């Protein structure tokens, strides 16, 4: 039961559950395969077991690739549980729905994770599997959110860590990584340069690069977003999902999560229509979608949505396949629309998201404006990160007042009494 092997998505070759990510035969990506035949009996009991589980992603341990089950309590020297992630709020966003002329919109707020992005889900899984495999060093190539998460998880687990980021990353993300006491390496280049370096390094160092040699395990963590949405919606699926696309991993794994549970009969409904969202300044998947291609041509990123600035998306072909098979689309929005998206979400829901969430919200607004979403449809917007990490994006987007500490000044300068517009 549980995870059984790593299988190549391209040619189907099977491999042991070790720290590898590439098929030796065809270079295709490896993905965790499971045997869930032991879970098909009593669905009501399975649901109760999930509901009785911990308030974090390990309530879904049956569907995650740890061979030893969910991590246990802390030992003396090092925490085995690490930094629990998940169980983030699903918020009904009626004011947002009303503004967009939609019937029912929900916000899955994954900024409510320990390091304020969905990355804590994937790193929790990768770090736990790294421990099972005996690694002592965690590492990653990051656009920022992953850097925060890897540094924090390594600190919680008592592991050494190396975090590689583009040198021009937002200051908030650099500070919120260094604070955990990691080896922080700023690489002169963009994310794709960082990634190329880390891919090479992973062959030369015996480290667990969460998104390179541990990537098959890491990626599985994103399925927990789907499990949570389904559980929070009373064991059913929404009609549509709008989720950001950088490498395409989260987008495709959310669909995999729903599919697994639909196949097992744990939830009712069908696979949601999957909409992917990219920033126009880094939109290799959206460009391929518009052109009708089934592979992506890499681009040089130029966008304020740095957490999505992957010009060479590893899961691009699978993201395109999913958009097609689910009846969805891959949208792209300009940086101005990203800023407007951040403001729209904040003003209508009280959720302040980073630029990636601006991309997602702006894409939902675009879909709504062109009438792609029916009035009786239930839509979930996946908000992956926290606005405090990309403060520059909202600077200058609103009016503010500075006055002397007097009633007269307030009336004159703020309420503008006697001033005709």
């Amino acid at each position, binding site marked *: 039961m549980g995870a059984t092997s790593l299988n190549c998505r*391209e040619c189907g070759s099977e491999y042991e559950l070790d720290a590898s*990510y*590439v098929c*030796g*035969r*065809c*270079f*295709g*990506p*490896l993905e965790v395969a499971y045997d869930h035949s032991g879970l098909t009996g009593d669905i009501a009991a399975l649901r109760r077991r999930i509901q009785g589980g911990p308030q974090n992603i390990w309530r879904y341990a049956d569907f995650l690739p740890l061979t030893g089950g969910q991590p246990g309590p802390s030992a003396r020297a090092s925490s085995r549980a690490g930094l629990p992630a998940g169980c983030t709020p699903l918020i009904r966003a009626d004011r947002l729905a009303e503004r967009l002329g939609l019937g029912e919109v929900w916000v899955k707020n994954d900024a409510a994770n320990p390091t304020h992005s*969905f*990355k804590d889900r*994937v790193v929790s899984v990768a770090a736990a599997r790294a421990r099972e495999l005996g690694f002592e060093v965690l590492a990653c*190539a990051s*656009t920022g*959110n*992953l850097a925060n998460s890897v540094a924090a998880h390594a600190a919680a687990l008592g592991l050494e860590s190396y975090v590689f980021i583009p040198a021009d990353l937002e200051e908030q993300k650099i500070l919120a990584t260094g604070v955990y006491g990691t080896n922080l390496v700023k690489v002169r280049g963009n*994310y*794709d*340069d960082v*990634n*190329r370096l*880390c*891919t*090479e390094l*992973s*062959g030369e160092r015996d480290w667990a*690069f969460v*998104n*390179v040699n541990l*990537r098959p395990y890491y990626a599985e963590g994103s399925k927990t977003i789907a499990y949570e949405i389904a559980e929070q919606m009373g064991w059913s699926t929404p009609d549509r999902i709008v989720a950001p696309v*950088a*490498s*395409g*991993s*989260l987008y495709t794994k959310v669909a995999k999560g729903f599919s697994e549970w639909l196949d097992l009969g744990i939830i009712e409904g069908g696979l949601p229509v999957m909409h992917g969202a990219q920033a126009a300044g880094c939109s290799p998947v959206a460009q391929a979608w518009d052109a009708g291609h089934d*592979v992506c*041509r*890499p681009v*040089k990123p130029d966008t304020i949505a740095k*957490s*999505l600035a*992957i010009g*060479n*998306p*590893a*899961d691009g*072909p699978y993201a395109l396949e999913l958009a097609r098979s689910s009846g969805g689309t891959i949208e792209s929005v300009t940086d101005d629309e990203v800023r407007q998206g951040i403001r729209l979400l904040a003003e209508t829901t009280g959720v302040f998201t980073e630029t990636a969430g601006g991309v997602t919200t702006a894409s939902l607004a675009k879909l709504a404006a062109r009438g792609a979403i029916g009035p009786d449809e239930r839509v979930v917007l996946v908000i*992956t990160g926290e606005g405090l990490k990309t403060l520059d994006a909202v600077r200058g987007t609103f009016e503010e007042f500075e006055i002397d500490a007097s009633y007269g000044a307030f009336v004159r300068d703020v309420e503008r009494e006697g001033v005709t517009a």
Partner: protein
Amino acid sequence: MSVTVKLPTQLREAAGGVSAVNVDGDTVGAVLDALFELHGELRDRLTDESGDLRRFVNVYVGGEDIRFAEALETKVQAGQEVQILPAVAGGC
């Protein structure tokens, strides 16, 4: 004109265990053909039936993805490094 081809760990076994190979060629395509002459098994790993690179293979010349240049027609200067890496790493 000799260039160095850097091989990822996943290909080294098929290349006699080495991490880099020196071959001659003035384009990426010619360099890869020369590599396949030396290590025949690599041809099947890296290219499909029509001879194109498989979709999860990335090739860089001097650190730049060849898809930003002229793909297999990209010129290679003597002494430059051609790097082959899996495409599936990274991301969110």
